[in-house]
């Protein structure tokens, strides 16, 4: 009875009613999938979308007692005070210099090492290198800073070695002039091996026949690397490049800097994220001000992502969107 009724309803009414019925039917059929989706939606709403609404405190003067809605609107005051802060320009400069440095200095390293590792023929040897190179990725920056501070400190192994061969000590950790270099170097130390994996996976997908054909045509090893291997990982590199540029304001490396810097090197390593954290949680700064700095960061990020995507598309590498 009921079944025939349902079928009848599905066939008879024309136009919009029918499509809504079909949609409703699809939704009803997927009801169990929606149940499965429920926790995920709850998570993203509570911990991602609800905080986005909290962004409005960047345009308010937030106070704990009044809450987000009750706090008074102050327009762009927080942004004005951000730009008028003398430190702000330095912090912004550090953020951009460090993020750009990561792209220029750190970005190519995994590509180079993937190409080198690819030249290692014996599987066991290759696996040994990969095992060693990738391990530090799985350690937190807390641990890595502990390891590297021990190694590089005044009484660390590096300085013991230098002394042993009669060279003067260098204190990389304390010296503002070399601190940025140290940040790049230690980040390469930790992440290089992990970075090669994605490229090695791309290389593994190359048809061996290409190499054979090239050898028959007399291409040497270097030529094959340049003409076959590199072109086949170029699009992977392009995607990673866009992602990194689009994340430039976060890409300065908060986790690392926060665990390695100290007041002696603030001038060269204090970035927006560390600045926000300190001004809020150490110096008791205003929540609204810190949020405004965060909003500023997101806007710059968004602009850069669009530019990077356009640039890569121009270069004929597809792009993300």
């Amino acid at each position: 009875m009921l079944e025939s009724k349902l079928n009848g309803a599905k066939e008879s009414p024309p136009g919009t009613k029918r499509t809504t019925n079909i949609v409703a039917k699809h939704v009803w059929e997927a009801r169990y999938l929606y149940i499965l989706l429920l926790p995920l939606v709850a998570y993203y709403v509570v911990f991602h979308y609800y905080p986005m609404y909290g962004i409005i405190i960047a345009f308010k003067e937030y106070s704990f007692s009044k809450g987000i809605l009750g706090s008074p609107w102050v327009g762009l005051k927080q942004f004005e005070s951000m730009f008028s802060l003398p430190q702000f320009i330095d912090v912004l400069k550090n953020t951009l210099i460090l993020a750009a440095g990561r792209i220029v200095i750190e970005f190519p390293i995994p590509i180079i090492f993937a190409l080198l590792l690819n030249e290692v023929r014996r599987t066991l040897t290759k696996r040994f290198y990969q095992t060693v190179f990738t391990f530090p990725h799985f350690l937190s920056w807390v641990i890595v800073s502990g390891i590297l501070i021990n190694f590089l400190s005044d009484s660390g192994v590096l300085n013991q070695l230098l002394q042993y061969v009669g060279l003067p000590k260098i204190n990389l950790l304390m010296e503002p002039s070399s601190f940025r270099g140290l940040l790049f170097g230690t980040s390469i130390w930790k992440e290089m091996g992990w970075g090669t994996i994605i490229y090695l996976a791309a290389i593994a997908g190359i048809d061996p026949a290409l190499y054979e054909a090239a050898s028959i045509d007399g291409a040497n090893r270097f030529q094959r690397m340049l003409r076959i291997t590199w072109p086949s990982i170029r699009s992977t590199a392009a995607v990673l490049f866009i992602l990194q540029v689009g994340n430039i304001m976060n890409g300065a490396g908060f986790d690392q800097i926060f665990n390695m810097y100290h007041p002696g090197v603030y001038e060269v390593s204090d970035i927006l994220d560390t600045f926000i954290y300190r001004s809020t949680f150490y110096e008791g700064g205003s929540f609204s001000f810190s949020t405004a700095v965060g909003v500023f960061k997101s806007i710059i990020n968004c602009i850069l992502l669009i530019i990077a995507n356009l640039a890569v598309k121009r270069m004929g590498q597809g792009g993300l969107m």
Partner: protein
Amino acid sequence: MVEKRGWPNVVIHLILIFVAVLILVPMYNVVLISFADPGAIAKQAIYLIPTSFDLSSYKYIFSGDTVFRALGVSAIVTIVGTLINIALTTIGAYALSKKHLPGKNAFLVGILITMLFNGGLIPIYLTVKQLGLINSVMSMILPLAINTFYLIIMLTYFRTVPEALEESAKIDGANDIQVLLRIVLPISMPTIAAITLFYAVDRWNEWWSALLYISETNKFPMQLYLREMLVDVNKMMNNAYAASMASEMRNTYPEGLKMATVVVTMLPVMCIYPFLQRFFSAGVMIGSLKE
């Protein structure tokens, strides 16, 4: 194909060996110092060859209950956190992998947007505070319940599961949840295991949420405990002498204690690492990039 292996090979291996040494020596030195007798370190010009074996650093850090408590907190966060992670990621990714799910694209876009934009530090902090999670172990778990990157990897994987497998179960009257539990999960174990391990490492390494949300020292996880030990300097941010104090503070904790704590903190990751490694070449990580 036989090939001459001349000097390029030598150069390549020299570079790779040099880098491997550069990565291994600092870690090796940490382990060495944690097991060393301070006197022996002072006697040698370069402490790279062990001349002493002394467990006093370890005895000391395990003498009180602070380290045990920190390890306990880390264990809870890792176990409960990883279970929540993998449960939410698996069921969410499965539902989103279904082509016929109405509104699927809206959900996907909504999720991808969160990769580009977030509320930022303060709004997220306020959210956690409103939920009453400050100083609760759950503050280290719930805000990180799903990693969008891993979610997309799972989703990409589920799309490769042949539909025919599920159809037959559906014809027998099973609903989507039953299909997931009985048919899809058993054949997806390798991918789920990989993502579980990645999540576990992330949860073990978590220090940032703890720093933000946990102020009671008896709820500190191991990473934060270690951090406090290593960089006490940061606590003296406002101190005018902080810069000069920085170098002194590094010596207040005997080096051996710090290094023993480093070793204890990284040991679980070292144990998991061989299993993690099996998944590198599986190409699981690349799937997400092709999205």
